[in-house]
């Protein structure tokens, strides 16, 4: 994306839609399949209008059969297509987990390298909209435990616009998690914005005092916290992981080696979250560089409550980040 490129105002939702449109136009093997992606326009309106543009064969509404249509995506990918399968919400993906873990993630290996699966699965993730305990999980970090799949968490307009095509070009299954609170996010995007690489994490804010490592829905809370910290003289670096599997350990350690302090901000439940993996990797790769122990700010270990004030209390917030960092740095001038 060239610096001088003219910018256009857009939203995360539109950027994602443009990415789908772009992929459909680039490659006839690409099609979108999922519940209400067509006639309804997508439960979060991401695919709105695409049915008229590409027709019901390529913008394919499915019955409520998560396991079968995700499995069908795998089969279609094994037979030459480039399917984009949409699962409305991460919780429903649990109904398709057999296909994702026992088939999509293993078939390349079980076949001794004969059958790769160029499949992309998109789903909404995260809390923050009072949808309660069956619609608010953040399981992207949990999925990142599984060998054989890749896990992406686009947080910016550029990544919403650019990650899909790169994922479709990948020979193996790629899961894309879109945080529900981001769809309405507005901003400027280069008119010629296109595919982006998915191999590296990105430093969204350079800083020298501490590394704040995060991704997805908590990126902007973290950036907000960083600004507040700046006003009190603490210069925080913010790392956006972007891809949760494989993790870009290099960029993480690089940042920690410069700041000697780290906090991981993760909307997943604390125990066994990807924040634990990152902390462990810092332990293994930068132990002697640390001025003080790495800390984690995660969701409370409780199913997400419906009541607004309790939901907010359950999730990582900018205020928590500020307080934690201030305490950590206060303790070590």
């Amino acid at each position, binding site marked *: 994306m060239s610096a001088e490129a003219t910018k256009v105002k857009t939203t995360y939702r539109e950027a994602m839609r443009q990415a789908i449109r772009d992929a459909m136009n680039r490659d006839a093997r690409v099609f979108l399949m999922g519940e209400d992606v067509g006639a309804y326009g997508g439960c979060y309106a991401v695919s709105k209008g695409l049915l008229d543009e590409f027709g019901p064969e390529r913008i394919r509404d499915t019955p409520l059969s998560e396991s079968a249509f995700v499995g069908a995506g795998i089969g279609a990918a094994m037979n030459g297509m480039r399917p984009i399968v949409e699962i409305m919400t991460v919780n429903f993906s649990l109904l398709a987990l057999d296909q994702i873990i026992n088939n999509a993630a293993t078939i390349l290996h079980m076949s001794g390298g004969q059958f790769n699966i160029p499949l992309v699965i998109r789903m909404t993730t995260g809390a923050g909209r009072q949808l309660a305990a069956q619609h608010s999980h953040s399981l992207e970090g949990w999925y990142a435990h599984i060998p054989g799949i890749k896990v992406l968490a686009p947080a910016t307009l550029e990544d919403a616009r650019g990650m899909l095509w790169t994922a479709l070009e990948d020979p193996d299954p790629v899961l894309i998690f879109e945080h529900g609170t981001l769809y309405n996010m507005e901003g400027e995007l280069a008119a010629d914005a296109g595919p982006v690489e998915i191999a590296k994490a990105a430093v969204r804010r350079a800083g020298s005092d501490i590394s704040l490592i995060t991704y997805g829905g908590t990126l902007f809370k973290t950036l907000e916290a960083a600004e507040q910290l700046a006003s009190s003289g603490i210069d925080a670096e913010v790392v956006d992981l972007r891809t949760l599997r494989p993790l870009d350990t290099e960029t993480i350690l690089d940042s920690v080696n410069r700041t000697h302090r780290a906090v991981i901000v993760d909307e997943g439940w604390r125990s066994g979250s990807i924040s634990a993996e990152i902390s462990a990797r810092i332990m293994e790769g930068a132990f002697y560089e640390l001025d003080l122990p790495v800390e984690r700010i995660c969701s409370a270990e409780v199913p997400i409550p*419906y009541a607004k004030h309790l939901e907010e209390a359950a999730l990582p917030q900018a205020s928590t980040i500020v307080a934690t960092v201030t305490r950590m740095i206060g303790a070590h001038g």
Partner: protein
Amino acid sequence: KCAELYSAAKIRGFLHLYIGEEAVAVGAMRALTPEDSVVATYREHGHALLRGIPAGAIMAEMFGKQEGCSRGRGGSMHLFDAKHRFFGGNAIVGGGLPLAVGIALADKLVHRSRVTACFFGDGAVAEGEFHESMNLAALWKLPVLFFCENNLYGMGTALRRAESETDLCLKASSYEMPAWPVDGMDVLACEEAAHRAALEVRGGAGPCFLEFRTYRFRAHSMYDPQLYRSKVEVEEWKKHDPISTFQDRLTVDGILDDAKLKLIEDEVAAEIEEAIAFAEAGTWEPDEELTRFAYSEVKAP
């Protein structure tokens, strides 16, 4: 009865959800005793109310107050009430069916003559959990009433675009489960059918499947632009509005007149006011209690 009917209808006005389908829940619920169990979906406000959960507790739940029937933890999609054996609104389509099978299994194992009514929509029929649950219930002859609310759409997907075979009773038959269709816009037909089914199931004949043919007048949810169906179709169905048609019938039969109607409407209006007032007056659970109910605080009996 009419009050129930009305409140089942009007109180929904608050969230625009069950309008058009009231006759189903009203009729079906009347076949159940307080000892029976109910499993419902996220579209369960009417069911909860008809089951006897106080309107105030339901309203408070939607407000997120701790006086709500789920202490504000569940919200509108997850109304629960142990006292009324209301085993919850379940927001995973098809997710409640296995629970109903298990509740009924427990009753059978200890030889209780209770039945479990499980409500779900036409969209749930495509889910694997529907298939597995229907087979288990039929194979083990469990006392489950499978109440399918067929409103012809699963969100924006018309039944004919979701099922290769749209006669849902035929599906039930493939599990050797007795099944029949019911005019879901006629409250008396719903009640009669539910009674008949409950009688059989209670008698130990095994589960039963009822397909209530009804229609959702309002959008699926607040966000739904309803691109998938025509105004004409909706208007056509509205002619069969279960409330106005039943009202007319009662008026013709001389059971209802404008005075009585006025009375009922005032009653309902008052009930709603009360519920809202109760909810407004409700309190927020303190943040310190956030992590409660992830695990039990007392040992199970």
